[in-house]
């Protein structure tokens, strides 16, 4: 088999597992075959899906972004706060700008201070959490912004806008990661950083763009969530920190970087959302649900995400 086929293999696996799980859900659980349930599922999956696409961009260059959860909250909280004074459009713009700044700070720490990605993004996440506490004095606002409301809850031809946005972002992500020059640099960095430095890969630019894009997408997800719930909270991003990484890995991308396909992450996010919905449908207690989810993730990872033992 060619190298390219091998690389794509795992993403195909992710779609295969997703298909089988979905069929099983339709066959064995009630209400998973209806159009409305599918619509609800792809709508709720889009929040996680958007964050996970950003996470894929940095994981592919063997980075990791632990600050996405904080950025999701940052964007929603800032948007709600600014919108109450100067209107929805201003709120959205300020929120997205703030998110990009976080991404640039992350990248700056990696490039110029040479911090490990885990440390830098952990630190910015902590600082943002503290800054939000001070900014909101501990009680963030709620906001109804018509544009975000439509984006999160409306639909066109039966497909939720949130899903359309997710797929559009996925398409842009595929271009950035798999078709553009920067994407090739990211893959090179993920395979071997010293080798890519030696062969002239512009490490600063690649890092800045990928981390800024990741933070921007987390910010977008925060806005869509704000539209969906109509309220912002300081912890609204917390689930996305680990789940976005899980989506990337279940989508067949190597956590060590350099191998995988962005579309696999779309399948990974859908799979996680579907599993969560299935477990909820079975009326299990919260504890049993988490145990099952954890075990299922481990089994799936054992099935197709094992790293080959390389030197």
């Amino acid at each position: 088999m060619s190298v390219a086929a091998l690389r794509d293999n795992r993403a195909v696996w992710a779609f295969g597992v997703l298909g089988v799980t979905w069929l099983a859900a339709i066959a064995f659980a009630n209400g998973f075959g209806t159009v409305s349930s599918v619509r609800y599922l792809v709508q709720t999956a889009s929040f996680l899906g958007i964050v996970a696409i950003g996470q894929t961009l940095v994981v592919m260059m063997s980075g990791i972004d632990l600050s996405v959860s904080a950025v999701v909250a940052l964007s929603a909280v800032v948007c709600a706060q600014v919108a109450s004074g100067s209107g929805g459009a201003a709120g959205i713009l300020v929120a997205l700008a703030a998110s990009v700044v976080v991404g640039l700070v992350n990248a700056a720490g990696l490039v110029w201070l040479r911090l490990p990605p885990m440390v830098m993004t952990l630190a910015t996440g902590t600082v943002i959490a503290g800054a939000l506490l001070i900014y909101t004095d501990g009680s963030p606002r709620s906001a109804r912004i018509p544009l975000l409301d439509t984006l999160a809850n409306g639909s066109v031809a039966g497909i939720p806008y949130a899903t359309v946005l997710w797929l559009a972002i996925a398409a842009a992500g595929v271009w950035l990661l798999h078709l553009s020059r920067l994407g090739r640099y990211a893959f090179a960095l993920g395979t071997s950083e010293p080798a890519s430095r030696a062969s002239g890969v512009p490490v600063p630019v690649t890092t800045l763009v990928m981390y800024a894009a990741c933070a921007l997408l987390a910010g977008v997800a925060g806005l869509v969530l704000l539209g969906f719930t109509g309220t912002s909270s300081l912890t609204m991003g917390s689930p996305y920190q680990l789940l976005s990484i899980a989506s990337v890995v279940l989508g067949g991308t190597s956590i060590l970087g350099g191998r995988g396909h962005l579309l696999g992450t779309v399948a990974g996010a859908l799979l996680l959302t579907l599993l969560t919905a299935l477990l909820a449908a079975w009326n299990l207690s919260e504890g049993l649900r988490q145990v099952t989810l954890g075990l299922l993730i481990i089994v799936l990872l054992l099935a197709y995400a094992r790293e080959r033992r390389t030197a």
Partner: protein
Amino acid sequence: MSERIRNHMDVLGLCALLAVVLVTYQRLDPTLLSPSTITILSAQFLPLILAAVAQTIVMLTGGVDLSLGPVLSLGMAVFVVTAADGATGVLAAMALALAVTVAAGAANGALVAYAGLPPIIVTLAASFLWTGVTLIVLPQPGGHVPAGLVSAYNLGWYGIALPALAVVVALALWKLVRTTRFGLALYAVGGNEHGAYASGIDTRRVKILAYGFAGLFTGLAGIGLAIQTGSGDPNIGAPYTLNSIAVAVLGGISFFGGVGRMRATLLGALLLGLLTNLLLFTGISTFYQLILQGVVLVVAVAVKTLATRERTA
């Protein structure tokens, strides 16, 4: 400069910082060195110190434990659910809680050793698993910790600071473990896994033992937290995952394994804990403590990284 002296410099730097913080602290709170303050502070710092010790052990093998917080909650939950009044009841509950957390840690280690999955993914998936198990054991905050134990632990027992004693005993235990073959093998596996394997070390066994020991210290942290707060909470462990990583990194433990000293981790935990308390005295809102924590982390690691690079360049 040799590796040995550089490690020494790390510890010296942290000691100097800690001395500055301690002197400032003493000025703001003259009771710092009184037994009652030591008892309160050590009860407050014990969970973070022991969690950081656990994280350090895993990081020395070149791994990272994202399920530390959930395992801490699990230890706490098992302890508060089973603890009965009386010394035997408490000791039995402690033994059971530690057995559970050691088993959880060893299960993580077995997956890392045999499954060929990177530690970060294994422990990420395991974090969902252990969170779930904790919620089954203790669905809501509550549980029972004997009142006598709580007051003896937090207020001193015949003038002895029990939490401080517990930390000292735990660290002495680790010191002992470090002198065994396993202690040496731990650094060897983290420093160069293939080299360690080639020189006859059973690398899988070492990893399982390391994660098992991490489970032990995490369980102790959970029990300490339960006695400090007097009850159990299934979600209270969550922040300890990232905080323990922050403290270990502050102490100079490398993500790539094999580099770092436990005493530096201890200093890092004390430094972070005292700094946070200092903020309280200065009257700044506690909201700033997260910002301080993040900034301290970045500055500490950046200074170390840049200094090391200049010396090697």
